[in-house]
């Protein structure tokens, strides 16, 4: 790798230059557990297309606790947690792949457990502490799992990846000693149509000891 400092990255969002990043991640040591820094920046302001509806019998005023922030908003009773995260809070890292709790793209962590946010009504999610993919890189540092996903190319189109990361984080937070087969089990509710399962499991194995230490 070249030694001189690279020019200003074209993406302002990185505080770490891509060069350092490549040096850390892409070098011979693919199992590197050094964490890259990344500034996630300010979340985009959500767009409210519709006027705020009144609180009638089909709507509710709710309070949601997401990634440490508290949000109060009026929603249609039918809105799922995934809908509200994405449409109202602009947290579009949480995807919806089937809207029936059958694919895992919408996985978030609620009170420490991985759940399908498309299969929980937002009005019914008020009691919980919710973590989404946007809250995973704390203080601008990639989570060890995120780092490991990069190192192992555990992504293709990337659409299922936030859900895979959430499922693994919840599982490893509860038990950092999961075996390879148990890790496989932990993501068995998350479809990856591009077929990254092997790389995802490899990545999780890399992250496991780092998560144990942290």
């Amino acid at each position, binding site marked *: 790798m070249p030694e001189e400092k690279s020019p200003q990255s074209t993406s302002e969002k990185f505080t770490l230059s891509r060069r350092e990043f490549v040096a850390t991640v892409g070098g011979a040591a693919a199992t590197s557990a050094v964490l890259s820094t990344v500034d996630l920046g300010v979340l985009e302001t959500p767009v409210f297309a519709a006027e705020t509806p009144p609180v009638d*019998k089909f709507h*509710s005023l709710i309070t949601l606790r997401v990634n440490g922030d508290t949000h109060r908003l009026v929603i249609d009773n039918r809105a799922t947690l995934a809908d509200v995260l994405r449409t109202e809070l602009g947290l579009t890292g949480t995807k919806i792949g089937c809207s029936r*709790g059958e694919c*895992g793209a919408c*996985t978030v962590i609620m009170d420490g*457990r991985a*759940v399908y946010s498309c299969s929980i*009504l937002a009005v*019914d999610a008020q009691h919980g502490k919710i973590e989404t993919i946007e809250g995973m890189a704390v203080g601008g540092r990639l989570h060890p799992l995120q780092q490991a996903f990069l190192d192992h190319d555990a992504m293709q189109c990337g659409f299922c990846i936030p859900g895979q990361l959430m499922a693994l984080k919840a599982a490893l937070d509860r038990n950092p000693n999961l075996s390879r087969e148990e890790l496989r*089990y932990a993501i068995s509710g998350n479809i990856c149509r591009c077929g990254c399962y092997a790389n995802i499991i490899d990545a999780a194995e890399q992250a496991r000891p780092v998560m144990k230490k942290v």
Partner: protein
Amino acid sequence: MRAFEFHPAHQISDAIRSLDEANGNARICAGGTDLLSRLKDDVDNPERLVCIRTLPDLRYIRNDKDGVRIGALTTLSTIEEDAYVQKQLPLLHQALQVTAAPQIRNQATMGGSICQRPRCWYLRGPFDCLRKGGKECFAVYGENKYHAILGGHLCYIVHPSDSATALVALNASVKIHGSKGEKTVPIEKFFVGPEVNILKENILEDDEIITEVFIPHPAPGCRGAFNKSRERQSYDFALASAAVQCRMSRGVCEDVRVVLGGVAPIPWRSREAEAVVRGKKLSAATIREASEAALRNAKPLTQNDYKVDLTKLLLTKSFQQVSI
């Protein structure tokens, strides 16, 4: 999904009152996983959801002198991880391990699991079928690979719940609260086949909720096994399953409960198989005889006669596992 009122209940009596008021137009929302799918698929259109997640004190696994009591809102993963369940009720533990997907087990509740509606694609699709008050069962001459081979009567759904199959084998009972008070029903009596009610799979009335599942302590010498076959290794309903709970004494089967899943509109207790093995050593011949007996009355549809052999096999496996 059509618009509905959302009523969070803070006491059991609130929930019951709210259900009662709605005259059958309310549904209970606990974990909500199955309910939301049905609402989104527009095959159920209640005017009101009564949320019981907000009820206090229905999340527990308690051991007392008679048995283990599981609060209706306890999630499947909590039960799966419970030390007593793992040690004393391996049958239930095994059933939960192969139920749905991790996220579903984190969300789905004990009560909801046994009340989930069948997966029949005609029931869940835009078909005016008998179970929705229509005039015909589309499965009989249709795509019936996953349908019932036992206990079908005009309607050929299979009961989808692995935990229900396990609980019937464990002789569990269900505590129900309703407008008329509280009652406890043996779980076997909780489920009803289409010959009794073609619209529902159980006796729960519109104004009733399940509050607890009770499982008696297995007697000393009891062993249990649960085997399930499916087309994917995760997130798939049973093609067939077989639960055996057996009290063994000096190699002889003193008492036994045999329940089959995925093959009938209710968790299918096979008294025929039980009668064969009761009082006998579980020899290969006895097991074979019992498995044959369990499926003797099977009436496969056009595409599911494989389930007969498959169920025999799973039952044989479960018998073998408890006989070791």
